[in-house]
């Protein structure tokens, strides 16, 4: 029967089983590959992963001028870019989206431009960023920020149009609200949950843009490392980096869900 409910313990058990069978299948494939070629690095086994971790975490540089390990350097670069870019893009798009939702004379000129630019894949715009902003830190931040700005500004604007009824605004005026109070107490409070959901949805695209840019022009960062290591078939490092990216997305997701529950207890009722 479709949608027949199953008990909670079965959900958990099947979840664990899923993870283990994935690991088992991987182990099997890795073992078979090693029978063909003992030194294979395409589907590395435990031993190879151990070597990868050691190499990743080994301090770089010389005795006198020690540098952090590969992993630390990459994580620091990528997370900083991701954080700065996403933060900037979110703040910008929330401000612009709310301004558009509040004032028709702001929405009228901006809405067509934004909906057009939102349709161009940001990765396709990479060359433009290289030319205009160069290829340093600013470039990565700008491209992540702008990459999510257009879609997110558009959806913030749309949620205001859909969720904030004229009646809600008119009534706030009858309760003595000023214009800034309507923006903060009515519009902002009403669309905070969709905004948080939107940020959640933008983490994925933001990582895509950043990783793509790092693969093309980076000198450090996870995208750069994945490309370099896969060239020499050091797949253990590639897989670990991919896992880290996956967990980053998951944790970001959880944090925002948690935040939404804390800030908007009304939303899930």
């Amino acid at each position: 029967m479709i949608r027949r409910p199953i008990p909670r313990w079965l959900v958990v058990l099947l979840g664990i089983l899923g993870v283990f069978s994935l690991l088992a299948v991987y182990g099997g494939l890795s073992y078979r590959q090693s029978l063909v070629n003992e030194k294979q690095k395409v589907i590395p086994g435990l031993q190879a992963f151990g070597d990868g971790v050691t190499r990743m975490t080994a301090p770089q540089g010389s005795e006198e001028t020690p540098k952090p390990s590969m992993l630390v350097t990459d994580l620091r670069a990528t997370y900083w870019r991701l954080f700065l870019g996403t933060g900037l893009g979110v703040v910008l798009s929330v401000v612009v989206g709310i301004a558009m939702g509040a004032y028709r004379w702001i929405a009228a000129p901006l809405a067509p431009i934004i909906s057009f630019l939102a349709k161009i894949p940001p990765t396709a715009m990479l060359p433009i960023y290289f030319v205009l902003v160069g290829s340093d830190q600013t470039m990565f931040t700008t491209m992540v920020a702008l990459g999510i700005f257009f879609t997110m500004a558009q959806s913030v604007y749309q949620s205001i149009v859909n969720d904030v009824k004229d009646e809600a605004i008119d009534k706030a005026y009858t309760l003595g609200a000023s214009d800034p109070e309507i923006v903060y107490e009515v519009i902002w409070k009403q669309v905070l949950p969709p905004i948080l959901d939107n940020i959640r949805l933008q983490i994925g695209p933001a990582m895509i843009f950043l990783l793509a840019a790092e693969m093309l022009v980076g000198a450090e960062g996870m995208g750069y490392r994945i490309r370099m290591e896969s060239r020499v078939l050091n797949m253990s490092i590639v897989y670990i980096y991919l896992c880290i990216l996956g967990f980053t997305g998951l944790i970001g997701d959880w944090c925002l869900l948690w935040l939404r529950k804390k800030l908007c207890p009304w939303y899930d009722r």
Partner: protein
Amino acid sequence: MHALEIRNLSHWYGTRRILNKVNLTIAPGQIVALVGPSGCGKSTLLRAILGTDPPSEGEVLAEGRLVTEPNRDVGIVYQNYSLYEFLSAEENVAFGLKLDKTSLISRFIALPAYLRKRREHLQMARDFLKKVGLEAAMGHYPAELSGGMRQRVAIAQAFILQPKIVLLDEPFGALDEATREDLQLMLLRFYQENLKAKQRGERPQYTIIIVTHELNEAIYVADRVIGLSRFHTEGSQGAMVVYDRPCPVFHPDDPKDLSKFVEQREELRSAVFDPNYVKHHSKYVSFWDELSNDALAVAAMNSR
């Protein structure tokens, strides 16, 4: 001073005239039912009074002050969208106090003072909710309330600021019969409070225009019924006030004696809703005359 005064109000949508020279004065403490065929312009009139859709011609004065945009003098309760879903019941009721009595900046820079006021506001909101029979649901969000509870909260929300007048646009339209009667009783209790305030020589707190399509409801909750309609000798020019008469006042503890309604309901039906019954628009507009006749009669009685 009149709670509300409408002078020669006309409204056009494009070239179509909806309202034609509506004139109306409402005294503090009156509960006025506004009835009329659907699409005749009742909501348009309310939006003009509210100030969200200012009239094409004429003016609206709330206690002598010209209404040009929505403000705290005129309150509103809608049929739907009546509450802010991100605020609990008590926060919804306290919302007006927060917006009207404190400013956005002071909430941030003078936080301790604001928090003190906030506690008072929430206490006032809870007291009002108790009065409308909602002490059990004060911390609940609108999504957790039934339709009838939501409308009670919305009514408390509008009245707590003590506006000059509150407009109710088909407030009970989506409720089931029993809930509807509970809410009608609540309005009757408000009316009794008005009478007591008048006896003490105070300004009555509840002045209401309630739009309804239920003639029984109109006669039951109001002390005055106004009919808006196109069915009169100037009909092509839009709706006018074609009916304005007092109606019997019920005490909340009285039984709802339907026989008292029959005559006036038939009168309303023909005067306001019957397209074939064309008459001069002022034929049934006699509220203030009837009132002053009563006053004269009372004066005559006293002088005897």
